[in-house]
């Protein structure tokens, strides 16, 4: 994205990279739709625990496996991810107006939120594994880790993207005329948030 914000006139008047990211996002919708649909299809189909919302007693050992989810922590992560969407809008605002302080500050805040979210997920995954939920354990584990894992990968890539933007901004390579570079990253970031807005209730809240 090092290209100058070039003056080429497009048929729509919208920059091609912006159309491209929208196109990509449209395609990604089907990607996540397939993952979410699979998760929903396999709800309650697991042969063995642990389960998301109910405890499960292993008939062989008599061991009780607790319900897996810890809603408060995930809610915090969700809230921060949501706020980060606001933060990146403010960062973009700064970038478009050449307000370096605003740009760097809000961008840093966005990145921090993203990092917190990824950290939260790493913690959550490790914790689940300790509680006996693995990819292989049951359908819930398989579809849960796949869905949230791919979302987490998207967040991680987004964080890397934003850090790159941050470095460019620090070096002064993100002037207003190139703010589109950040706008595109922001569109992707919003999309990743929106997907989580769907995943969070479907996976964590629906019983």
């Amino acid at each position, binding site marked *: 994205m*090092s*290209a100058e914000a070039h003056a*080429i006139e497009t048929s729509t008047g919208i920059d091609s990279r912006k*159309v491209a990211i929208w196109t990509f996002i*449209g*395609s990604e919708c*089907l990607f996540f739709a397939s993952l979410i649909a*699979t998760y929903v299809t396999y709800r309650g189909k697991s042969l063995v625990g642990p389960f998301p919302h109910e405890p499960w007693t292993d008939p062989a050992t008599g061991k009780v496996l607790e319900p897996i989810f810890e809603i408060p922590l995930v809610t915090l992560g969700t809230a921060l991810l949501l706020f980060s969407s606001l933060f990146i809008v403010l960062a973009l605002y700064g970038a478009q107006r050449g307000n370096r302080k605003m740009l760097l500050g809000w961008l840093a805040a966005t990145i921090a939120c993203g990092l917190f979210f990824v950290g939260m997920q790493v913690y959550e995954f490790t914790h689940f594994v300790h509680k006996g939920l693995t990819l*292989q354990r049951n359908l819930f584990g398989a579809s849960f880790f*796949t869905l949230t894992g791919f979302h987490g990968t998207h967040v991680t890539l987004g964080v890397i993207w934003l850090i790159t933007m941050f470095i460019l901004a620090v070096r002064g390579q993100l002037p207003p005329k190139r703010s589109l570079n950040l706008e595109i990253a922001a569109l992707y970031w919003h999309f990743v948030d929106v997907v989580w807005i769907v995943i969070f209730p479907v996976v964590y809240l629906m019983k």
Partner: protein
Amino acid sequence: MATTVLGHETHAAAAPSEKTGLWSWLTTVDHKRIGILYGTSAFIFFLIGGLEALIIRAQLFTPNNNLVSPDFYNQLFTMHGTTMIFLGVMPLSAMFFNYMIPLQIGARDVAFPRLNAFSYWVFLAGGLLMNAGFLVNAAPNQGWFGYANLTSRQYSPGLNVDFWLFGLQVLGVASLAAAVNFFVTIINLRAPGMKLMRMPMFVWMSFITQVLLLLAFPVITVALIFLMFDRFFGTHFYIPSGGGDPILWQHLFWIFGHPEVYILVLPAFGIISEVLPVFSRKPLFGYAAMVFSGAFIAFVGFGVWSHHMFATGMGPIADTFFALATMLIAIPTGVKIFNWIGTVWGGSIQYRTPMYFALAFIGMFIIGGLSGVMHAVAPHDLQQTDTYFVVAHFHYVLFGGSIFALTAGAYYWWPKMFGRVLDEGLGKLHFWLMFIGFNLTFFPMHFVGLYGMPRRVYTYHAGLGFDIWNQMETVGAFIIMLAFLVFLYNMVKTHRGAGTKTPADPWNGATLEWSISSPPPEWNFDTTPQVHSRDALWEFKREHGGMLPEPTHGTGAGIHMPNPSYWPLVTAFGLLLLNLGIMFSPKTGPWGIVVGTSVLFFGFFQWVFEKGYSEFTTPAHGAHH
């Protein structure tokens, strides 16, 4: 005014240095060169797929034949299907997308030239990976549809399924990247005045195809991810012993798979809609209806996937829904066929080779369409499905349809791409051999299917009445082989210096690609044409009062074209390494994945931050004058 619009000026400054040699091909970002790369690779894959078909036909020539082993036969039919779809028809269409879309919309290149190069290299990597199984006698052998749970480790322990799984995954990346690129190109790089409803029909159908690709491929990506997890990480997405359901694969696969059918055939519709008007000397009949019927086919195409699954016993409600939705698709398809006939009707038909193939396409597609309606009769589809009747049907739409259309396109656009018109005599010989061979091969399949011969069986008993039909089919298949040998000979003969260079506009074309020299200069248009109507070039010629003078292109000075870059190639290589890394991780551990990911990221960052790189062409209009 046509003359000024298409006027070509000479420039005093030095021309961009001539770019030749292997390195120039590895680093090219020119949509025309990438188109030729796509075409060449796809044609080679297509010939390999054809060879597989010939061995299949030889094996089935007599009952209880032992020409090939059962497992090798299964590899052959799996690879024949996979190759023809993903490595034959799709990239051959991509060749025309690449070469013709920018020319037809009056652009200098695609929106993202390096991404375009990346798509090609990833496609090549996927194609080679898919075929690599043959080297270790473990080519994919589970069918192109790869139904679970036969694909699980338990029932397919070898590398066969892995080659298919990772090959397809890599090919999916290529298709998606290309789809984004062409979608944006068509949306954004149209010449001034080329409104959506003035676009050539090939561009329209290509556009709809990109939408289908964008929406269908993510689904197969997810389906393949699940399969990969089942095979490599011990999940049970499709494995009943862990509660998984093999039907999930079928749904995901066909939600992708049915739109895929239209991905294969819509570009063909586009090509036919270009060839018929030019050789009838008459505009396309019912342009708007053609656009909307294409869009409607694509839209409804997402709602019919379960008609591939009637035999699973979905119950009467679902059967009814999917039967009716499938019948619905016949309506816009019929509209297209009638409009094509309407285009020819009242015209002045120029019987040149492309027109032969285009007219035969209509005839073949009618047959394929009618047998398609028979499948929609759901209760009787239970009798037809998985028999040769279905094989007959989809070869009529994909060979009689897509391949005939792509061949029409090849003869039609050959002069534009290579500067020579292919030999007419050999072209017609090619046509007749292919037409006769095709029908001899595939028409009897209707009968042998209804007489009860299932698909995907490596042999059959005498006494079931299959013999004579299979013999006819095999003879037909070898006639098709002859047809393609003639085609190959035609290419060689045409380019062995005998023929003369072709003018810019050998067919009296209707669209902008014929306004520039054959082959076009690297920058395509000296100045961007101003479009005022459909069939823009016909309009220009009408205003001019006859054929336009032969264009003399300038040196291209003052026109910025994107530089070559090797980072797309490196990034594609990283993606291949990553997939190989996962594939062999059970034996080698994770280092392959680490190396692959590193190369992928390295290539990508080099690409993004390539020094002083601008992949955008200078605004073509107003660049000079």
